[in-house]
């Protein structure tokens, strides 16, 4: 019998690997985020070690591990894999046990997942094979604007006049951004326009029900996107404490159920 039971969720996304550890009571006791890179196993191992150190636990305490995300089948020490759709739903419902529509903006994927008041999934939509509206879109645009990715949120907040971008394609949006610079538009205004582009691409994927939750790395690092989305939707949006970890937390919750 383990002295300290730890349940592990590993979310290997296209851009970042996230690990969440929960205890038997379902509380988050450790977590870490790393670049996924090209060696998913190495990223998972590194993340796991960091989160175990945070939780003051060791590998012998691990009872069950569920992996999710693009690299879900590449984790040698995982007991089972589940899709990120299920895990995001599980993680969000843990924090907001309501009928919810989850908007998850990841590095490469956008999702809208709808759950009923019992947490059962009603439907889900993923973006088509296109980077519009994803974290990869913002990464590409930050390079075009020659600004650090982490500065985008504060720049967008300073905007007094938003520049709207029309293109659907990430690469052509890059060209459009250059055109706006040539026209003398401010970087702050262009950045806010880029945020609006992300929101529009996501909102057009599905209609939204009463309670909306936003998660994902883009939201975690650019909380102003949530504020803008609230203005567009004219409603309060729920955001969990660790929006980038929702999939990993959901996987950990599945791990805790699996051992029982």
């Amino acid at each position, binding site marked *: 019998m383990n002295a300290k039971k730890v349940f592990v969720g590993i979310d290997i996304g296209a851009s970042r690997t996230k690990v969440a550890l929960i205890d038997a009571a379902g509380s988050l006791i450790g977590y870490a985020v790393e670049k996924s890179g090209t060696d998913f196993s190495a990223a998972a191992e590194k993340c796991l070690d960091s989160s175990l150190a945070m939780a003051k636990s060791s590998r012998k305490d691990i009872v069950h591990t569920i992996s999710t995300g*693009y690299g879900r*089948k590449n984790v040698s020490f995982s007991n*089972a894999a589940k899709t*990120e759709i*299920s895990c995001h739903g599980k993680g969000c419902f843990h924090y907001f046990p309501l009928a919810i529509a989850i908007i998850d903006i990841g590095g490469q994927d956008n999702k809208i997942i709808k759950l009923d008041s019992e947490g059962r*999934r009603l439907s*889900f939509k*993923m973006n*088509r*094979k296109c980077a519009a509206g994803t974290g990869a879109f913002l990464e590409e645009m930050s390079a075009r604007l020659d600004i650090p990715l982490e500065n985008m949120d504060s720049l967008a907040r300073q905007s007094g006049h938003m520049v709207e971008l029309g293109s659907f394609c990430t690469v052509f949006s890059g060209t459009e951004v250059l055109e706006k610079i040539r026209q003398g538009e401010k970087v702050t205004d262009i950045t806010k326009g880029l945020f609006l582009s992300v929101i529009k691409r996501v909102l057009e994927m599905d209609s939204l029900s009463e309670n909306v939750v936003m998660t994902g790395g883009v939201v975690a690092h650019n909380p102003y996107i949530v504020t803008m989305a609230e203005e567009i939707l004219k409603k309060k949006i729920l955001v969990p404490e660790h929006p980038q970890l929702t999939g990993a937390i959901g996987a950990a919750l599945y791990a805790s159920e699996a051992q029982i």
Partner: protein
Amino acid sequence: MNEEKKPARKKIHSTTEMNRIMAEYFYELDNAAKTGEKKIAWCTSVGPAEILRAMGFLVYFPENHAAMLGATRMSTDVIPLANARGYSPDICSYLTADIGAYIAGVTPLSKAYKGIEKVPKPDVLVYNTNQCRDVQDWFMWYAQMFKVPLIGINTHLGIRDVNDAHVASIVKQMEDLIKPLSAVSGKKFDLDELKQVVALSRACSDSWKKVLDTAAAVPSPITFFDGTIHMGPAVVLRGTKQAVDYYNLLLAELNERIRNKESALENERFRLYWDGMPVWGRLSDHAALFANLNTNVLASTYCNSWIFTDFDAADPFTSMARAYTKLFIVRSDEPKEQYIKDMLKFFKIDGIIYHDAKTCPNNSNCRYGMPKRLEEETKIPSLTLNGDLNDLRCVSDEQNKTNIEAFIEQLEESKPGL
């Protein structure tokens, strides 16, 4: 964790006989093309093949060839050749694959059938736009290449109820084919011969329907992926005795499976309906993916498109006109939705997969809100996969895989304990 386990999908023994009659069919065409002993007509897959057979033509179906290009994954290599000639990457990838293969001078027939070097040269091309307008443009290319006549039928589209005016219009167009066809074949039209062919087509259709309907059994003895392979004779050999005999053989094997409670999959937990075209280049991958998830995709709109219950030998022209106009693809959304609802009930379906094929809007039924409407009415969940019938540049395997796995997880949540 290992990526995949080997799926268990049971082999259909009748396949050997199907391969034999299909080989016989292609060799007969090849021989006719080489010797000129018989005239060859190219026909669209749901075109008036009965008239052509009754007038002594051997009938070749470019759509069947295009599907072979897709299934052998030759299509993605040759499509760009057609694109370069001005055929957009956004139009039918059956068309672009087939024309691309012609430009490249390649055919999957050469690999499958020793001695066949090229597709059989047509003496006439006959289309029916009931599938889409692209077939007409497709055949026009070959009419110009081979300098042979192009004739056809222009079917009304978006029909709610097929009425006498629709049928009369198609009958007239069918009758108008006779004169130019006689000029090519040198054979006089004989109504009794047409009646015999229509009777055989009806028998083929009836047996094919019985084959597909076996999937209503629980567990199902057949999968959609089997259906896409075994529909070959219904497409290219309808109007012949070989096709009728084949489906009776296949039906007996499937009924035997039902008697023995033998499932097409080792463990059938979920039963899905497929709407739209297959992704030909991913047929075996998709079959394995679903089988690994203990899910049987067992019924489809697509395979049922070669069921023509209106064929009546006593009234061949009118019944053919009605049969070829009552097709799902020709109809408006109301009858389409009713059709799918009936299918969901009959086959005891847990979920629907819609394939949104990039280059086939006519056969992608998810673009005008149908999935949401049907989901609200039937409470049966659905998933839309983005892909294409032949152009694998439009297919994202990883995204489709995640979507499919997530969909099955959703079904598991709604049917716990299964």
